[in-house]
Structure formats: C-alpha cells, structure tokens
C-alpha cells in the first residue's frame, strides 16, 4: 500500500515540477485564440521554431511601438507537402460550401478536381456551360478563405504552384512599394530566378541557396579533400556516406537537384547536360546513405558523424556550424556552396485568398521585407536590430544588407548572392517544365531502387570501373531527355493516376534489372 502511494506521489511530483521550477521571466502561457484586445494574425508555415520565435517577437514589438497589440497564431501542420495538402483540402471544403450553399449549385467530382487546376497554356477557350471552368472563375473572383492569413516559407516552386491554383492573391505591395520592389531595392530576377511574382501573389522573404555540408573528421578519415563541386559526392570512397534528401518529398530539395542539372546544362547544353547530370545523380545515389524526407536530418546526421557529406540548403549548414562554434567545435562541420554551380531560390511569403485579417497580414509581409525584418535573417543574435535568441544566418533579400556598413552585425554568411561570380544563372526554360518529372525520375532511378543501385556502384568501384559494366551503368534508356520531357511528363500530367503508377513500375523494374546486370558485369571484370 505504501509503495502505491509513493508511486502516485511520484507521478504527481513529476507533473508538478516543470510548472514549479519554471524560470521567472519565462514567456507566459498564452492561448493565442484571442481574448483581451490583441489583434490576431494566422500564419501557416514550414519554418522552424527559431524563425517563428524571432519574427513573432520582433513583429509584436514593432507593432507595439505603433500602438497595436498583436499576437501571431502560428499553424504548423508539417512541411511544405503537408501544408500543400492541408491548403488544398481546406480550400476545397470552403469553396464547396460556397458553391452549394451561397450559390446553390450542384457539386461534382469534376469540379472538385478542376476548380483549382489552371488550364494548360495552350488550351482552347472553355465551352459555354463547362461547369469546371465556371467553378474556377467563381473561385478566382471569390473571397473564399480557410481561416489563414499568410503562407510564410516553403520555396518559390511551392508558392508558384499555390498561386497558379488560385489560393494566393495579390498583397498589393508590388505595385505600390517602389522602396521594396524594383532595381534600387529587391530586383524581380537574380541570375534568372524570380525573386517575386510580377502579379504580387508571392514575394521572396529571403534567399536560399544549395550546397553541401560535410564532416571534416569523416572526410579526413576517408582521405578526401573538402568538396568544391557536386561531383565530389560521386567519389566511390564515399560509399554509404552521402546523406540525401528525397526530391519527391520537398520542393526545396527538388530545387537542389534541378540546380545540379542546370549546372551540367550550362556546360554541355540541354540534352547532353541532362545526360551528364543523370549519370552524376546516379553515381551520387550509388553512394547514398539514405534519401530522407527531412532536409534538416541531413545536416544533423553530418554534424553527428553519421554521414560524411550531404546535400543541404544553405542555412541548415550555417546554423549547424553556428551551434558547434558555440560549444567550441567550429571545425567539425563545414558548408560549401559549389562556386558557379549553385542556383538560388527565393523563400517567399504570400497572402492567402480570403485572409480574415488582411490588413494585418499585409502589414506583416511589409515588415518581413523591410530593413527591420531583413536584419533578422542576416544579423548575429544580439547585434542591434538583429535576432535576440537565434542567429538565423540566412541570406537576406535586400541587397543593401550585404554592404560593408553591416559587416560587423552580419552573421558569417559566406556568400553574396548578388555577386555574379558565386552563382549559377538559372534558365527557367531548361528545367522548370520538368520540375515534377525530375523528382519522379530521381525517385524511380535512385530512391526506390536504392539497394540495387548501391550494390552495382559498389561492384563497379571495386572492379575498377571495367568498360562494359561502366557503359551499362551510364546507359540512360527510359530516362534520357526526350523520354522524360515527352511520355513521362505527359503521364505525370494525366488525370489518371494509374498512368503515373505504370511508368513508376516500368522505371523501377528497368533500373533494378540494369543495376543487377551492371553488378554481374563488374564482378566478371568486364
């Protein structure tokens, strides 16, 4: 009986302790559902907690100085994929209610599938009585919302997709704020990459670039130099040591694979560059430790020594290095953006259709793009005007913040995207129409066939890359530029999911057989 009371007392004590020893001055337990006189802003975001903390705090203070009390209600259903699904399902539900309730019109599976799907660029005009076209027009003219105000973060690919679907609307800043948008402030394009939407539906809040994070201890142990190009990840000594994020799980990761392809195309032309990039990606895949759905996992695993090198968005690499610097081990991890081989991407912010707090939402967007907001990305924590708890170490969108006058306050960013020599110019026409197909090909060629690919590449390396096996490994049947931009891209656009599934199975079966043949040839020394 005594032990029973002891157990229950222990349970109560464990529950009570965190509340009892909570430090004085810790933030209050705020229920952001409103109450009091606070205005509320609802933001959906894949950004991590440090970004949410710094921008939430700074915007509250900024608004307080203007006599307004504001609370931000952050919504984090997951990464960009979950957010995309979430927004699509919420807008579908809201619009259905509008269509069947306010407009009293019948709902159908075709309307559900089509009212957020833009027609292809060369599609003929819709016929009179086309219910899907009518529903789409009603949606685009409506103020149907889903209770959210702002979409913050996620990559330009995601925001462009949401904008085309009609879920984003013009925030009214692009045409009215020449201090923010224009040649003197944030240019519309940088190296061929759009930094804001000409229709004002999304605006880059900061810049993301792509590179590699690496563990110096592991590279040293393997006798490898610090990497300087994407090709470094194809070195067979890195077998099982390359951490890669799966491009079919994240638009940002897809962007990094697109960058590898663009780098090769810049050197060898579109078709030959595609072929060279596919062969390089296949070799990198042959060294893969895994293809993860979490981009942060790559940086964390490299930092922990569980992988030697990995593809990585710039700030993950810099953030991890900052952390290790704080505990006295800055040498453990490094980040490099391959010079002249990395493209940039805008990390946007946008106003959602039917935002319930539109004025406050637009104010927040303007704040993020202002000097006050941009300093939060770029400055060290504690620097005047900078973040207070976390150094975010991200590339600001405002060119002036790269000036020498901010050198002392700025975190060690290591690159200036406005410096043409550091970056690869982006050619939208080369790869943008194939963006989804690239992720699909990488998934079927490398992710789904990972064990066979790795066994083949291992056998190839151990045999010293004999000619017949190497030629077979480099064979691009079914993933050449013509096939991917033709039948595969068409299957991915089809309304029938089975068309995509059939290509998926065909590519997987083809590559498994190919890799087994390569391994057999290599073991035979041919």
């Amino acid at each position, binding site marked *: 009986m005594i032990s029973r009371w002891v157990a229950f007392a222990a349970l109560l004590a*464990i529950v009570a302790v965190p509340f009892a020893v*909570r430090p004085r001055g810790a933030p209050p337990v705020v229920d952001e559902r409103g109450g009091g006189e606070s205005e509320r802003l609802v933001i959906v975001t894949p950004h991590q907690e440090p970004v949410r903390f710094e921008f939430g705090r700074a915007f509250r203070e900024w608004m307080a100085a203007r006599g307004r009390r504001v609370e931000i209600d952050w919504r*984090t259903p997951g990464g960009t994929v979950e957010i995309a699904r979430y927004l699509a399902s919420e807008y579908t539900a809201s619009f259905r*209610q509008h269509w069947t309730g306010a407009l009293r019109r019948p709902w159908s599976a075709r309307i559900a599938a089509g009212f957020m799907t833009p027609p292809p660029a060369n599609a003929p005009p819709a016929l009179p009585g086309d219910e899907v076209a009518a529903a789409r027009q009603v949606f685009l003219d409506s103020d149907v919302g889903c209770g959210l105000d702002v979409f913050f973060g996620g990559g330009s690919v995601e925001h462009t997709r949401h904008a085309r679907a009609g879920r984003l609307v013009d925030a009214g800043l692009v045409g009215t704020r020449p201090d923010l948008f224009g040649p003197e402030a944030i240019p519309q394009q940088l190296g061929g990459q759009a930094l804001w939407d000409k229709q004002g539906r999304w605006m880059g809040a900061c810049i993301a670039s792509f590179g590699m994070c690496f563990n110096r201890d592991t590279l040293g142990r393997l006798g490898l130099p610090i990497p300087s190009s994407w090709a470094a990840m194809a070195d067979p000594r890195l077998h099982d040591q390359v951490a890669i994020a799966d491009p079919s799980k994240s638009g940002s990761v897809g962007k990094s694979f697109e960058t590898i392809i663009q780098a090769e195309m810049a050197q060898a032309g579109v078709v030959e560059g595609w072929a060279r990039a596919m062969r390089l990606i296949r070799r990198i895949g042959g060294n893969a430790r895994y293809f993860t759905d979490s981009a942060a996992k790559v940086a964390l695993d490299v930092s922990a020594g569980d992988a030697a090198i990995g593809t990585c968005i710039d700030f993950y690499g810099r953030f991890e290095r900052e952390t290790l610097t704080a505990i006295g081990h800055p040498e453990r991890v490094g980040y490099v953006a391959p010079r002249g081989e990395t493209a940039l991407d805008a990390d946007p912010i946008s106003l959602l259709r039917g935002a319930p707090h539109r004025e406050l939402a637009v104010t927040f967007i303007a704040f993020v793009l202002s000097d006050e907001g941009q300093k939060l990305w770029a400055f060290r924590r504690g620097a005047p005007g900078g973040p207070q708890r976390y150094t975010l170490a991200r590339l600001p969108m405002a060119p002036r913040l790269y000036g020498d006058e901010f050198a002392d306050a700025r975190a060690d960013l290591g690159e200036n995207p406005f410096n043409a020599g550091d970056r690869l110019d982006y050619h939208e026409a080369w790869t943008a129409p194939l963006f989804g197909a690239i992720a699909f090909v990488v998934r079927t060629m490398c*992710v789904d*066939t990972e064990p066979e690919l790795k066994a083949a590449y291992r056998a190839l390396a151990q045999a010293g890359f004999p000619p017949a096996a190497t030629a077979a490994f480099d064979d691009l049947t079914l993933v050449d530029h013509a096939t991917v931009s033709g039948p595969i891209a068409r299957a991915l656009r089809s309304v029938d*999911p089975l068309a*995509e599934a059939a290509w998926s199975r065909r590519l997987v079966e083809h590559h498994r057989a190919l890799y087994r043949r390569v391994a057999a040839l290599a073991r035979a020394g041919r």
Partner: protein
Amino acid sequence: MTARGRAVGRRGGVTAAAIACGAALALFLFWPLSESLRGAFLDGNGRFTLAYIGGVFRDPIYRAGLANALGIAFGATLVANVVGIGTALLLDRCQFVGRRLLGALVPLPLMVPPFVGAVGIKQILGQAGALNAVLIRAGLLDAAHPIDWLRAGRFAVVVLLTALHLYPVVFLNVQAALASVNVETEEAAAGLGARGLRLFRKVTLPAILPSVFGSTSIILIWGLTELGVPLVCDFQRVTSVQIFAGLKDIGRNPLVYALVVLLLVATVALYAATRLLIGRNHGAAAVKGARRRQPRRLSVAGQVAAAGALGLVVGAAALPNLAVVLLALARDWYATVLPVGLTLDHVRLAIGHEMVIPSIGNSLRYVTLSTLLDLLLGGTIAFLVVRTRSRFSALLDAGAMLPLAIPGLVMAFGYLAVSREGRPLSFLNPIVDPTALLVVAYAVRRLPFVVRSAAAGLAQISVTLEEAAASLGAGPLRTLGRVTVPLLAPHLLAGGVFAFALSMLEVSDSLLLAQRQAAFPITKAIYELFQSLGEGRALAAALGLWAMLFLIAAIACARSLLGRKLGGFFRL
C-alpha cells in the same frame, strides 16, 4: 420491480449500451477510416476500381516491402519470445542478487518517447557513437575504420531493435501466466518423474501457451506496422516506411492507400487467426488461491550468470533510455564513450521554452479527457463482450481492437476529412480548437488496452456475485454500481493509467491534428524541437527525459495496482 421486469430492463440496457458503443465506433473509427481509405478504390474520375490493389501486387518494390515487413514481424516475434519467456522464467524461478531491480527495469523500453528513442539509438550505434568509441578505446577497432552498425546487416539490426523494444510485452504476459500456474501441478508431475525440459514442455508450457499466443499476435501486428525502428535505420523497403513516405509524397500516389488496405487486411487476418487459435477464454487463466512456487536460490556462480544474462538483456534494451538521459545532460557527445561535460542547460532551456510548459498542460488536458472516454467506452464494451457473448458484442470486441492495426497517420487524415468545414463533424474542426478531436483520436487509439484490461478483470469476477445481487432485488444499474464496478475498479484504474501513459506518447494524431502552437501536445513539441537544428535534439531529449520519468511513474502506479497482471494489457 419484478424479476421479469428486471430482466427486460437489463436486456434493454444492454441493447442500448451495445447500440451506443457501436455508434461511437462507427462514428469515430470506421467512418474516418473509410474516408482515409476511399482513395484506394476511386479512380481519377471518382469511379470504383480495384486497379490500385492489383497495382501493389504487380509492383516489385511493394512486394519486397511486404515481404520485409513480414520478415521483420516474424523475426522480431521469435527473438522477443525467446528473450521474453527466458526473462520471465528466470525471474519467476530463480532467486539471485539484483533480481528485483532488474525485474523492475524490464518494461523500460516501452517507455522511451518516439523520435527521442531514435536519437538515443543513433547516439549509441552511430559511426561516431558510443559503441564504436568503446571498441576503439578497448583496442578492438581501428579508429580509421569504425563500424557502421546501423548499416551493416540492416535487416538483422531492425529485427533485433524491434524485438528488444517489444520483448517486455511477452515478458509481462508470461510473467502474469506464470503467476497463475499452480505449483502443485508441477510438483505432481515432478513426483511422477518429469524433470527439466520435459517438465517445462509437458506442464509449464501448456499453462503459459495462451499468454504466449496472445503476446505473439500483439508483437506480430506491432512488428508489421512498426515505423520508428526501420525509419531510424533508414530501411526504406518496408511497407510501413513505404506508406509513411508515400503519404508525404508531393505527387499523387493512390497505391499508398491500397498498401494501407493490404496492411490492414494482413493485421486483421493475424488478429482473427490468433483468436481462433487461443479461443476466447484466455482472460480467465488466473487461478485464485493457487499456491505459488517460491523462487530457488542459486549458487554464487549461478547468481552471477543469471544476473549477468538478465543485466545484458535489460541493459541492451534500455540503452536508448540511457542515451536519452545522457543526451539531455550532455554538453557535447561525439565520438566518445560518455558525454564530454555535463550541463543542466538543456533542461533549463527546455523548461523555459515557450512551447514546452503549455504542451505539458495541453497533453494532460487532452489525455485526461481521452482516458475518461476510454474508461467509459472500453468498460462498456468489455462488459458486453464478457457478459453477453452475442455476435454483435464479438464484432464490437474486434472493432475495438482494430486501432492496434491501423497506422496512426491514416486515422489522422481520416479525422481531418470528417471534421472539415461543411462536414457533419465540422464542430470538431481542429483548426478552431483541436481538443475535442485529439481527445477522440487518443481515446480510439488506446481503446484496445482499456478493453483488454477491463475484459480480463471481468472474466475474473464471478458472475454469481452479480446474480446474487440481482436475486436480492438489486436492479441492473444498482448491481453494476455496487458490485461490478467496485470489483473491476483496480483493472479500470490500471487500464486507465496505461492508456493515459501511452496517449501521452501518441505521435501521428498529435502531429497532424494539433496545428496551433498554443495547442501543441507534448509529442508535437518534442517533434518540433527534434526537427530543429542546433540544440533542438538536446532540448527534445530533455523533454523526452521528463516524459520518460512520467511514464515510469505511471507504470509504477499501474504495477502497484495490478502487480503481475500487468501483462493483461498486451493480450488479444
């Protein structure tokens, strides 16, 4: 009221309770499930199709995934049974130094919060992990060529880690069964010349076999749907990981939902097979008043061997827990046996973090309410199952056990689908306030444990006590309130504590349904911290440490109420 009137009233009450339970399961289990799975049967034009199901079988990757999932499930079950039965026998039959302490540590692997446990495993088995550091320091390994434990023999590692995570389920079951084995039967067999293995095979094993089957089916199902361990080991070609990855796919992948349907069919088939194999009377296995065997004191060498063997198993299985504790307190832990420098900074930062304290408060609120709902629903279903034995109650029983077989993510998407604006359950919309939906989701997922606990308790309460009360004029409600519920209370309370503890660790529903930071439960807070760069994992470990202590205390409460019958939770 006449006896006839009471009988009619009782039948009416039972019917009403059965209808209410059936409606609750239909509304909160089958409907969300069907919403989530309809994508497996609808083509691009919204017409019914079986093409996706066929597509799964035609795809070699999915076939390999299913084969690997079955391999892991059966492999882990085999290892967990060997380790679990051996551990239970050792603790039941032998007296040795450290027996009580080691016995108390056996359930630890069930209490490590997900994600954090994964970090713990990596901290031990990673290339720059503690195990390699130990081997390098002992001169058994070249520092230039550390072993990549999580890659070398990945299938075996996944099987072993899953088995070590789940062997306490077998242990608790067999321990409970051994507690009810009448020693006089064994003594009689010994008197007739049965010794050693023959005695075990002929007398002990048949007595504990229903429990072994029960826990076996739980582990088979758990192993078949296990996601955490293969994810940690980056083992992609397993059904559960393929589903997880497919659900996160940017593009459309209807085969994923077909895969979920197949997994569901496989788990339900396993469940049905187990029920057929062990029958329905396993709950009454305990023999009240039987004389218990006293453990035999071993020789010094025997004690060392026994304590060493048990310590090895318990230690290996509890390594993730230990790693979480050290990680929460470590200043830096990289390529060393133990952390370099200890600090309370992470604990301090975690407690001061604006996400953490509210998340503890939120979890306690959600989980308390869900546990109360579980007790009401689970207790009623158990009563119907044990006392009425109709076909409908058998269906209710099977329905209540179904959540064991359904991946959490699938249910979470289903709940979102039925609570959207414009749908009948839109008043539960988690965007406005996730409390109601999270309470329902937690309650449904942990319902099997309360039903099993209550059913086991009811099976041990003689129905003659209720009949005696009825014959003395008590109505059905009075009998329930004055006789059945008081006798059942320890089982309900212990089942409630267990459901409470496991709900605190519920991941999938928490991730998807709690979207407002102010409404995060503790698992979502851990996940958010875990995903954060920098000190995120250390803060997650600190919060995980709290969750672990909380769970240990909760299980201690359950043990103090139920003792060796704790294994009843893990029986089908």
